[in-house]
């Protein structure tokens, strides 16, 4: 199985530890991921600003970069959602279709493709999970409160399985944090207010470590936590699992899934 790691631009430059944790976590689960160096971005920042046409060369570059992999895995549901949902504006060649179908959010990949729903290890902290909208409502990785009172999802299941970890019960389980890409700049006032309210919910309910599956939301929330000097750490969930999981013995890697075949 050939897995290409997609590390979004801002993670590459500002949160390398998230990329490293993603890489090492996959390694511990028996997946040796490859990081193609020519990768840049999925094009979402432009498209969400209305410049989908300008983003097309970026889409092509993304597809060219990852067409040769069985899976593309990214620690960011938002980028994955963009590739899956919005790469419909370029010609649907075999490569484009293959990349759209085989691009996975890290925890979707771990749960759905690797079939792992519990992770051993220990992380004795109260953890607050921020559900990112694109992963939750876009990729349906967690139940939506608009539909059902049941609060369940891939990431909350994985987190609950870690020894010593307690999950914060929030007043608002899945309210948007207000990052929203360029929204965080163009609508600065509302964006900041939304982030402050999210952080406050975690603070009130005892979160020590604020986590999530999407570093873009966490970057915004971390900016608020640090500005307000709040007693809370912000970590991507990959960092938590990577820290909690013991090193595997070298012979553990046994998993060989079937590659996805692109529909023509």
């Amino acid at each position, binding site marked *: 199985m050939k897995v290409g790691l997609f*590390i979004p*631009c*801002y993670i*590459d*430059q*500002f*949160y*390398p*530890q*998230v*990329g490293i944790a993603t890489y090492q976590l996959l390694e511990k689960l028996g997946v040796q991921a490859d*990081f193609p*160096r*020519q*990768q*840049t971005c999925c094009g979402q920042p*432009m*498209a*969400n*600003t*209305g*410049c*989908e*046409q*300008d*983003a097309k*060369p*970026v889409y*092509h570059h993304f597809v060219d970069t990852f067409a040769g992999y069985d899976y593309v895995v990214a620690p960011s549901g938002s980028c994955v959602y963009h590739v899956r949902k919005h790469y419909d504006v370029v010609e649907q060649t075999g490569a484009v279709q293959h990349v759209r179908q085989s691009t996975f959010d890290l925890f979707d990949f771990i749960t759905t493709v690797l079939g792992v729903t519990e992770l051993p290890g220990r992380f004795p902290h109260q953890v607050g999970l921020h559900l990112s*909208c694109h992963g939750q*409502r876009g990729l349906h990785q967690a139940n939506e409160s*608009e*539909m*059902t*009172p049941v609060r369940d999802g891939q990431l909350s299941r994985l987190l609950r399985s870690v020894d010593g970890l307690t999950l914060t019960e929030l007043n*608002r389980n899945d*309210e*948007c944090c*207000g990052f*929203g890409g*360029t*929204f*965080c*700049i*163009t*609508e*600065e*006032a*509302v964006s*900041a*207010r*939304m*982030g*402050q*309210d999210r952080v406050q919910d975690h603070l009130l309910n005892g979160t020590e470590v604020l986590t999530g599956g999407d570093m873009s939301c966490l970057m915004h929330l*971390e*900016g*608020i936590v*640090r*500005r307000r000097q709040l007693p809370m750490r912000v970590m991507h969930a990959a960092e938590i699992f990577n820290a909690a999981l013991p090193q595997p013995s070298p012979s553990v890697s046994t998993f060989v899934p079937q590659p996805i075949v692109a529909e023509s």
Partner: protein
Amino acid sequence: MSHPQRAAAFTSDAERTTWHDETLWFVRQKRDKAVYAIPEFQQLRQLASDIKEHTLSRLDEYLEQFEQNARANGVQVHWAADAAEHNRIVLDIMRGVGATSLVKSKSMLTEECHLNPFLIKNGIAVVDTDLGERIVQLREEAPSHLVLPAIHLKKEDVGETFHVHLGTPKGEKDPQNLTEAARQHLREKFLIGQVAITGVNFAVAETGAVVVCTNEGNADLGVNLAQVHIACMGMEKLIPRTADLGVFTRLLARSATGQPVTTYTSHFAKPAEGRAMHIVIVDNGRTRQLGRPDFRNSLKCIRCGACMNTCPVYRRSGGHSYDFTVPGPIGAILSPNIDMRQHSTLPFASTLCGSCTDVCPVKIDIHAQLYKWRQIIAQEGELPASKKLGMKLLSTVLAHPGIYRFGGKIAREGLRLLPHGLTHAAAFNPWAKARELPEPPKQSFRDWYAEQVVKL
């Protein structure tokens, strides 16, 4: 003024923003509770969506069927291509019966057409009878929400308004007492109203009946005491059958306020003996929206307001920040059809979180349409120049790995080496007004990875 400017003005009152957010979130929670209790709720949404889509696909036939049945009931049916024609029709009806006063229950269509100022200019006394509408009318403001027109106001604000206009004691702010004062004040108006205008929630093609849903009973009271009833409706209010009301009445109030049904679900088909009924069917841009495949399904909207209550941006920016008759997410996809330039910032007043789409009882893909309007607004050249240029530049960078790697390094190193006061200057960097920038690491992920590969 743009949405961000008006929103910033709203959030600058932090306490009021908290109150506005929490009050509307409470309504969203009531909606959740009502929805969770109905096991078939998601099926109902699908049914409602399918019925509306079907109706839109044969709208001309249903409009004609509706008109024919309404006429057979003794109702006069009028057609208005735009707001001006709608207003003229209403004024002509009033003049035809020599009426000078009008009571009006809630109608977003008449707000859209700016009927009130037009009639007042022509010497007609107009009284909005929905309590919230009356409050904003007395204050000479626009409603800030589809269902809760005065939700931007605190009871102290209402108390002051009623003190000035209705003579309630200064400082009176008890909602019970204020509502009682409005009841007495509006009863007088009902008793002398010559003409009553209502909006229309649903128009049933097979019977020619219009259905009006209220909690206060103001529509029925107005219509049943007046000589003339004028029902003003957007052409998209059609549904084929009476039986379809079973689907929509189960969805509307639960989605809007969490009530199991509105207090009054009133079916008007034929005027009482000796009285008259008119129906005005209005286009005002709707046929144009019908011709836009990506946006036509916004015409399924039943005006429940659920997308507003759930929208984290609306809750923190207030209805007036949208500066359009219909605020919130649904307004942000309806308004560019009316005037793209004037409303060009509305489709960007969203994080695209998708909650609006998930609560919509008729399954309008609101957040997907917001995304699509952004593309059109950019193509039509309505983006601010800075944004446009920035995105072109970004695209060049991101399509060229060499430039990208160089740029990323510059950004990280710059952030690392430049003084905090410069990188966090709010004047240049809106991010930094309320947030710290990430702490730049010494090494990027790709540099780390390169080292690993060497080690391997």
